């Protein structure tokens, strides 16, 4: 077998192992070790094992990831979104589908304080879905709204996916954060518009919400709005004005979340324990995949697969639209099966050389990739956000019902993607202001 054939065999072997429930990091890592052993000898494989994990994990840039995870988990374990949600609800309830629109808005806010989509969906599902269901909302709409809006978590900065992409593709994480902001807001606005139109056409979707708050209730609701916007101001303000690097913003954000929780008297020992242990588990499970992916990168690079793949794609056409179409198809197909972080780390070794060769702007491409990955979080059969909501509601809404509710949001995601591809300025305008 030639090295290239071993490389291709390795890609298939990894996909098969992943499909039979071998953990993703393990599948990538073992295939790489075996593949390199085949292509060269085991000494080279041992050399890779020795030279990789320590040198890549010990990284200042990557340290932003655990910090943003900690911040997000602190926000959810200390219930930092509730006040904002209640206030938005009072003011938006009169709109058609007001509660769902409120939920999208609250998700967008929470996304600006959390680095992860699943964490965003998880935090909001416990609060917003029961509220909508109790008010007679369509079950698909109620759950679909949160599953889809949860995906804002990785597009609106901060975002662990963007950190991983930035470190891997050697693009400034700060620039990526800025680039994700407008596409994230755009996604949220498109969701909101779709909800309004649908409810206008079919009012029964939104049940009958009676909101006639007293003056006292309004004041009460407003008293607890400040925590989340304050935190977002610290973190995003710091990054956008260039006062902090992403790592520093993450640490300061986590610290600020801690202080806010103390001020609100919400920092119980249980809440702290939950946030810290969740952050540790998330970090470690991401890094297990990252290490497997680093091995996979070396294996594939040595086999010549990425170059051959890039040549094959570019031999059809070197136009940007064709490359994006090919990439989109790959992501939409694999995104049905593999979760976003695993898929990002699985495909980066193949895609980054392609993008470099085709001369596509890596910041813009990164945002498109993240949006595609986010779509994968809500497509059947494997949609992590969907499973998470199903679990958080103790199966009160079935999986098919949730997936049905999501179909409308998927259509909107495709619309957003087309807009982002047609108008790169939407992505690149904010970073161009700062740099």
């Amino acid at each position, binding site marked *: 077998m030639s090295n290239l054939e071993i490389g291709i065999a390795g890609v298939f072997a990894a996909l098969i*192992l*992943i*499909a*039979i*429930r*071998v*953990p*993703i*990091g*393990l*599948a990538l*890592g*073992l295939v790489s*070790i075996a593949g390199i052993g085949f292509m060269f000898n085991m000494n080279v494989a*041992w050399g890779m*094992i*020795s030279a990789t*994990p*320590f040198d890549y*994990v*010990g*990284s*200042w840039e*990557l*340290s932003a990831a*655990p*910090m943003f995870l*900690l911040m997000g988990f602190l926000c959810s374990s200390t219930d930092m979104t509730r006040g904002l949600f209640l206030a938005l609800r009072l003011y938006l309830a009169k709109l058609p589908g007001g509660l769902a629109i409120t939920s999208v808005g609250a998700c967008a806010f929470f996304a600006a304080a959390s680095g992860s989509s699943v964490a965003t969906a998880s935090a909001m599902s416990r609060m917003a879905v029961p509220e909508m269901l109790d008010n007679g909302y369509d079950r698909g709409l109620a759950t679909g709204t949160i599953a889809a809006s949860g995906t804002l978590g990785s597009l609106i900065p901060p975002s662990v996916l963007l950190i991983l992409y930035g470190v891997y593709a050697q693009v400034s994480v700060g620039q990526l954060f800025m680039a994700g902001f407008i596409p994230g807001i755009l996604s949220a606005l498109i969701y909101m518009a779709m909800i309004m139109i649908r409810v206008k056409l079919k009012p029964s979707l939104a049940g009958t919400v009676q909101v006639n708050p007293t003056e006292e209730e309004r004041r009460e609701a407003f008293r607890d709005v400040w925590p989340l916007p304050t935190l977002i101001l610290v973190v995003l303000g710091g990054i956008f004005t260039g006062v*902090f690097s992403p*790592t*520093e913003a993450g*640490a*300061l954000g*986590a*610290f600020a979340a*801690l202080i806010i929780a103390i001020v609100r008297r919400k920092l119980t020992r249980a809440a702290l324990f939950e946030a*810290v*242990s969740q*952050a*540790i*588990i998330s*970090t*470690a*499970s991401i*890094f*297990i*995949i990252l290490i497997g992916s680093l091995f996979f990168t070396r294996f594939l690079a040595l086999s010549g697969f990425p170059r051959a793949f890039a040549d094959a794609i570019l031999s059809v056409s070197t136009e940007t639209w064709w490359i994006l179409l090919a990439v989109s198809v790959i992501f939409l197909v694999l995104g049905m*099966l*593999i*979760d976003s*972080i*695993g898929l990002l780390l699985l495909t980066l070794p193949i895609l980054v050389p392609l993008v470099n060769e085709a001369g596509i702007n890596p910041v813009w491409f990164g945002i498109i990739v993240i949006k595609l990955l986010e779509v994968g979080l809500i497509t059947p*059969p*494997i949609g992590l956000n969907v499973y998470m909501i199903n679990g958080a509601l103790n199966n009160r809404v079935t999986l098919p019902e949730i997936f049905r509710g999501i179909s409308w949001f998927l259509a909107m995601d495709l619309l957003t993607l087309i807009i982002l591809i047609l108008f790169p300025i939407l992505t690149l305008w904010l970073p161009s202001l700062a740099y």
Partner: protein
Amino acid sequence: MQFLLNAIRWLNIGTATAACIVMVLMMFHITLDVGVRYFLNGQIVGTLEWVSFYYMVALVFLAFGFVEHRNENIRVDLFAQKMPKPVQLGLYIFACVLGLIFFGMLFWQSLQDAISATQRGEEAMSNFRFLIWPARWALPVGFIGVLFAVLANLLKAISRREAL
């Protein structure tokens, strides 16, 4: 066997607790560094080195075993769930065996690296003398934790005759 499983459980909880403490320390250290810079125009020497070589390495590797213990490794469940129970168990055992091989190799190699780094007193490139060999030991410790956790999960799965 229950004793063995308990011992493994506590080992993994222990290292994960250490990882949690390190993460919180990292948060305070970076925050303090930013504070000193803006309010005192000074700096805490070595923040970059401490974060990269010690905090990150410890908080990531020491938590590996706990992730496996809690069965939170990211897997694709879709196809396996459609299979009959015995096949599911078979696939799970297969994955565990692969895990033992993979993490066994990582443990063995990182142990050799840690020993050799210790013997030569490994330092990092820095503006000052900065020893990094102690950080190397987080890897074998973390990987042996995963090895034990995989073993424990394997034993559990076999005794329950059911994939975890």
